[in-house]
């Protein structure tokens, strides 16, 4: 009997089709509407200017992409080109961590919390052979 490839399994029934475990959700400060972040640049990005640490204040509803946009305005195209591609998608070898957790999608929301939200950004080496 010739069984269709896409009829062999029900994707919804298996673990691999499910979303990965969610990252810990920050404890939101209900009294604040501002989001305060501290961005630290490492490696090649840190050499772009004399300043490698930035404290920013964003309005509620901001996304990680907004942080990148502000830094792009301050540091120029040379920063933006290394962090995002022409479509605004984060480059794979640019690793970005919010509160210590990796972020791939720049549309990840930021939240007002009682303390600064730490954002680390570093460019890693792309190629590897062997």
């Amino acid at each position, binding site marked *: 009997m010739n069984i269709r490839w896409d009829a062999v399994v029900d994707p919804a029934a298996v673990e*691999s089709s499910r979303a990965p475990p969610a990252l810990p959700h920050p404890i939101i400060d209900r009294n604040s509407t501002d989001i305060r972040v501290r961005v630290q640049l490492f*490696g*090649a990005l840190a050499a772009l200017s004399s300043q490698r640490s930035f404290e920013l204040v964003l309005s509620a509803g901001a996304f990680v992409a907004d942080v990148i946009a502000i830094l792009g305005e301050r540091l120029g195209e040379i920063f933006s080109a290394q962090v995002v591609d022409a479509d605004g998608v984060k480059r794979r070898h640019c690793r970005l961590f919010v509160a210590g957790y990796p972020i791939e999608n720049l549309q990840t929301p930021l939240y007002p919390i009682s303390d600064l939200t730490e954002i680390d950004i*570093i460019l890693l*080496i792309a190629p590897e*052979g062997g």
Partner: protein
Amino acid sequence: MNMFSPHQFKAAAQEDVWLPSSCALCYSTCSILAHRVDGTVIKIEGNPDSAVGKGRLCGKGVSGIMTHYDPNRLRYPMRRTNPKKGLHEDPGWKRISWTEALDEIAEVLRKVRADDPRKLVVQRTTTVTASRVPLHAFASAFGTPNFSVSGGGQHCGNGAHLISGIMHASWSIVPDFEYCNYAIFFGASKGHSAGHASCSNMGKAADARVRGMKMVVVDPLCNFAAAKATEWVPLRVGTDAALALGMCNVMVNELGVYDGPYLQAKTNAPYLIGPDKLYVRHPQSKMPLVWDRRSGSARPYNDVSAADMALEGEFTVDGVPCRPAFHCLREHLRKFSPDWTENISGIAAATVRRLANEFATEARIGSTIVVDGVTLPYRPVAAIAFRGAQGHKNSVYNFYAVDLLNHLVGAADVVGGCLGFNPTSHGHPETGKVRYIPTAGPDGLMVVGSWMGYHYPYPPPEPRLPKNLGLQDLLVIGMTSPFLDSVDREEMWEKFDVPYRPEVMINFGANLVMSIANKDAVAESLSKYKFIVSFDLFLTETSNFVDIILPDCSYLQSLDARSNFPFIFSLPGGLGEWCWPIRQPVLPSDGEQRQFAEVLLEIADRVGFRADLNAAYNAWLNLEPPYRLTGDTRYSYEEISDRELKNNFGAERGLDWFKQNGIIKWKKKPEEVYWRPFVDVRVPIYWEFLKPIGDKIAAIAEPRGFKIPLEYYDPLPDFLPCRSHCCNKKDFDFYGFYYRDVVHTNSFTMENPWLDEAARLDPFSYTIAINRAEAATRGFTDGQRVWVESESGRKVKGRLKLTECIHPEGLGFAAMCGHWTDGQPIAKGKGVFYNDLLELDFEHMSPVNINLDLCVKVRVTPAEESP
């Protein structure tokens, strides 16, 4: 100081212990048990508790004692006193202290980092897999994108890993040895020699052969795999694509056999292709269109049930004539007739038809099987390839064509088929780490879930005016690059206005002079560096260009928390267990040896970029709170290792736990191993993305006088000849090629006396294999000393070994012998240095993945008999 002081080991004297650790005689990194008696390791065996090797250990692994205890090991730092660098210049080594060495290195690095960090090139051997993260982290933190792995990648990975990644989300491919009934190997020795998951695969392959798996080996030489195969099919060197495409043609156009449902559901076969060879896209969403047979209209692929997608037919969409990609492929294949294949590859047309028929029949298209209670597609055939098939100018198409065989019959990552290893992990049951799964990227095509670096095989980045010395940001399909050392590198950097030049190199264990191509080209490149520092076990031919040599610890003296990770590298494929071993020191350092990873941390402290290095480790190791490294805290490598282990396996399973237990393992699930039905991704049987990449590269390169041969960027594979296939010079009638000897790893193990003895007993390891009948017609005799000369006049000398087990036009060399350094007296003068025949320029590499072309048309002439 070394993190493991000698007194710790003295306390263990009079013990008789077996300690779990990891081998490092090749990059398979099999799990071992080291038997230490009174402070001396007297034996090394495989660790039966580990899935990596399963207790088996090859001859190289058991011989590791001799590498460790070699009296020629480096024991203290040295600095050259002769400023002149050259292949035969004596550096005039002078012993210096670690303080002197690190002071000078730090000063050099501080200056270059302040000037332009990209002037630093970081370079490592691939033999020690776990060296990847410390060196990548160091380079990332320093701020240089210029990283290389010597001959690694340029000889194999740029092709094998690229296509395995695009089509199987894995570094390499193997047959599913537990269930495969018919495997065809193209220039691969998986399961029969060195290579990824070597010992594990050897056991699996042996069991498969006992079970009755038919194994066909297509190779110019009948050696490690072919000697154990059911059938050896000798082919003309470098013509693998011709045979594979000939077989595809027979299957599709003569037999009419292909797995339609697979092609519909799991590939881009139904995507409509326009006259410009590109997808026909939805005007708004830009999604590729398919022809929906149910509605009789073109619709985005993600809006149509796979069963309704047309695989063939001529359609018109908004006035544009178009056909499904499979239709284009089927038409394209017609030109690769069995007679054409015979003409190119030398394999009889009848054999091409028979092999295709056997492969198609054994595939059992449409069948299923239940594994551990899960119903899965069953396709017990596999076509695999590795170094031999892809080490050519036609690297991409050779490998792509071989893998098409699998995809035409749906034998990709299903039971019995061709497996990537291990593309999908659901993580440890208690922590969910490490978890990765391929995802659907642009146009629904698969993006790997795990990779060795961040240069993912798909989607390729946009080509741009290059800033990297290797030009991978222009030639974006390439991974590691010959342009760091090629004779045309300066010309290229000038053409593209690369605004800096390499000045400083940190090398870990690579012998670049021998492992890339001809020694003169590499030597010229190395001599241009202002400063080279190298971590080594021994002096090598490359040491002559080094300013400061640092004595590294051997693997028996070293710590690595991830000796076998990523799992896509050397963890065996197929069912079984996930397994995370560590490497731990079982012996103290000798003299002033120090493990390179610890030294790199100290250099970062001295130069003043520890905070960057901590951030880089966080990123490379994916450390999450509370295990992230913070600020510029001076963690030891042991502390970093401890954090990584706890991050992945829980607070109770840190380094101490692993030192005691050696490994952690857990059972693989069928839906991890045979993941393809469970993950909604497609793979390209039509590489539509290649054409625009080629066009964009050409648009940047050609105005600057760099011609891009766009025939290599066509979406469908072809046979495009190597330089050797076009050589008509009189008397140049052999195709020289090299193979990886089973008893040696690259140029590294030649110094090991046990392996040298084994190689001297082997009639082929140190000789040049030539077809007995062809030798007779030329009057050559067994053992005769000959010159082998390339078209461009490069010459190597060696002794012939006459054999029936080589293609009549082939001339086979075991790789990377022929050392000449006094620093390795066992290795010196043994075997033939094949790489010295290789040219190192754009004309001798794949224009797509910048893999070197490793075959050379040669002339063989008698040589004098003097030693």
